[in-house]
């Protein structure tokens, strides 16, 4: 008998209908469970973030300055921030508008952010990308400060294997450093390169003494984080969070406060009369890499 026929008959002889049904049951069950697990994960709500009246913040009024139409933009945004914080968190939607025509590329926002969040070497939340238009010597420069885009459809969230990052009700994409395992999948998934990994470096490590200011804890997400002994956020992915810890105290993000050209607008997108909403309606507005479908909450005026 040819070998092929012999094998076929062996195969037929060895697998009964009961074997086949049992196998189909096990494999089919396995596939069904897998599909259910993935579907449930995709549809499940983000981790519990406190909402409702408890999240309302009562920020004191300005006592020494009057806010009117002629006031500095920062004062107006500060007043609008107070108004937004008087609402529950789910009714706010933080948004940033950056006017590239006002940005002079001084990098003050980058430096201020590093100082505020005590960022170590290699970790940056808000670099300023420079674009050169034309050919030397007939060129013009344009600057694009690049914070986290706090996307409405964030590609970094769905890839996290341990639910350590999620979209908050107020639009900020948060990371729980205590949960993050440091796999860097979210870093790969972000088209803006907005996440960086903390590799545990210090600016003064090759000097005679590690400077004490580098060992101070930072206050991201309203919690004290101390990197000593490879503790989080060392080994974790890190990113801009619109200075949530400052917002909760009624202060604007550090980059907005520091900007010498008042090129940053920040506020509640759910408030149509806010300055940020006003600027976001300008006809010269663009969003970076919009074709990626991430729906960023940072808008640029060009």
């Amino acid at each position, binding site marked *: 008998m040819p070998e092929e026929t012999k*094998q076929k008959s062996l*195969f037929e002889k*060895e*697998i009964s209908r*009961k*074997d086949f049904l*049992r*196998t189909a*049951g*096990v494999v089919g069950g*396995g*596939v069904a469970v897998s599909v259910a*697990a993935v579907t*449930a*994960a995709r549809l499940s709500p983000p981790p519990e973030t406190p909402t409702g009246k408890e999240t309302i913040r009562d920020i004191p009024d300005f006592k020494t300055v009057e806010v009117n139409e002629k006031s500095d933009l920062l004062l107006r945004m500060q007043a609008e921030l107070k108004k937004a914080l008087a609402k529950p968190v789910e009714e706010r939607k933080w948004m940033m508008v950056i006017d590239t025509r006002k940005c002079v590329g001084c990098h003050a926002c*980058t430096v201020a952010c590093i100082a505020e969040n005590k960022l170590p*070497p*290699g*970790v*940056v939340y808000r*670099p300023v*990308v*420079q*674009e050169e238009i034309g050919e030397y010597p007939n060129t013009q420069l344009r600057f*694009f400060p*690049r914070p986290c885009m706090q996307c409405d459809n964030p*590609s970094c969230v*769905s*890839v*996290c*294997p*341990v639910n350590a990052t999620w979209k908050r009700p107020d639009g900020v994409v948060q990371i729980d450093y205590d*949960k*993050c*395992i*440091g*796999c*860097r*999948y979210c*870093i*790969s*998934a*972000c*088209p*803006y*390169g907005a*996440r*960086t*990994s*903390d590799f545990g*470096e210090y600016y003064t490590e090759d000097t005679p003494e590690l400077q004490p200011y580098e060992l101070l804890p930072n206050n991201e997400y309203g919690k004290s984080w101390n990197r000593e002994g490879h503790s*989080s956020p*060392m*080994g*974790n*992915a890190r990113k801009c969070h619109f200075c949530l810890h400052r917002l909760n105290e009624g202060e604007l993000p550090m980059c907005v406060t520091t900007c010498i050209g008042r090129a940053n607008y920040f506020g509640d997108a759910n408030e149509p009369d806010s300055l940020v909403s006003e600027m976001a309606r300008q006809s010269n507005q663009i969003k*970076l*890499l919009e074709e*990626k*479908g991430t729906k960023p909450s940072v808008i640029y005026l060009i």
Partner: protein
Amino acid sequence: MLEKTYKNLSRIWAVVFAIGFIALVMKFLTGERLAGYGSYVPWGLWVALYFHFVGIAGGVFAIGTIGYVFNLTGFRENFRVVIVVSVAAVITGLFSIWLDLGQPFRFVRILYAPNFGSMMAFNAWMYSLFIITAGVIFYLTLNKEKQTDFHDKKRWMLPLMALGFLFSIAFPSQSGAFFGVVDAKPFWSSPLLPILFLASAITSGGAVLLLVYTFLHYEEFDLTHQPFRILRLTIIGGIIFYFIAEFAEYSLVFWSPNSDIREAVELILFGPFWWVFWFVHIGGALISLYLLLKGKTYQTVGTGAFIVAVTFVSARLNVLIPGQAVAQLKGLKEAFTHERLRFDYSATLNEYLIALFIGAFGVALVYFGIKFLSQFTKKRLGTSL
């Protein structure tokens, strides 16, 4: 003669293991400081090795199962070897990715608090379930009347093997999907990727299985007999298929002037690591093809299989690194400069040495796994593994 070869190989293994171990200790003392990857190219050599090893695991088990079900000579009686090799490869792959984690001691979170919407968590669970399934199958192989029988006494062999087969096909395909779902990297967003990963898994898995069989059964080595014949043909077919698929992908890229992924493919072919593609990937495959086609002795065929098993890691590297090395946001590289904020990646000495350690660890798992379990089966069945 053979004893001398074994002795030499053992010595090489011991040196590699020792040097790699020192590098590993240094890694644990310094965290990730000695690694060359950064934030813009966050995955490097160890991640490539992880995908290579889980691919090998999948390929070994898939081929072994097909051979078992279709009763190809040598597969049923050696199925426990298939299980040991594939489980050892999964564990080696997991060890490799564990080393890559920024907070390695939190890895268990992926098991008790997973997000199944992430390919990483999905895969981690699949590996765990595969190891359990493989363990149960191993146990069932001990409960057969004869080693050449299909079923165990309770006839659970087939359903569990089918489940294991599903896992083994899913590992490599899912590895492709792992990258494919990342829209941020156009080079990875290719439906061809899961197919390429599966093809390379079958090819490298076949090579590892052939290598192990050659070591275990060199006295019976005959290319006209199974399992050597089918394994050799599988590897040759796998290499050819992989190159056809790869050619299809790359040639289309160059056809279109506006291809999003042209820059990545140019990096592969003509970038600073051009030699990985031309020498390691193409060169390695051509040499092994020659050895596998023309070789008559177990030494030449074994060498051919070894070259495939090692050089096919370049297939993973050539997907992994170029995909990350092209910035979506132009100017980001210059916006804030630091060693960790670069779009080029070169593995450091520490990474290479640990990679060698990972390889040596995998070899040790297979060797001691076979040795230890052989003693166990000898006691229980009176035969070695």
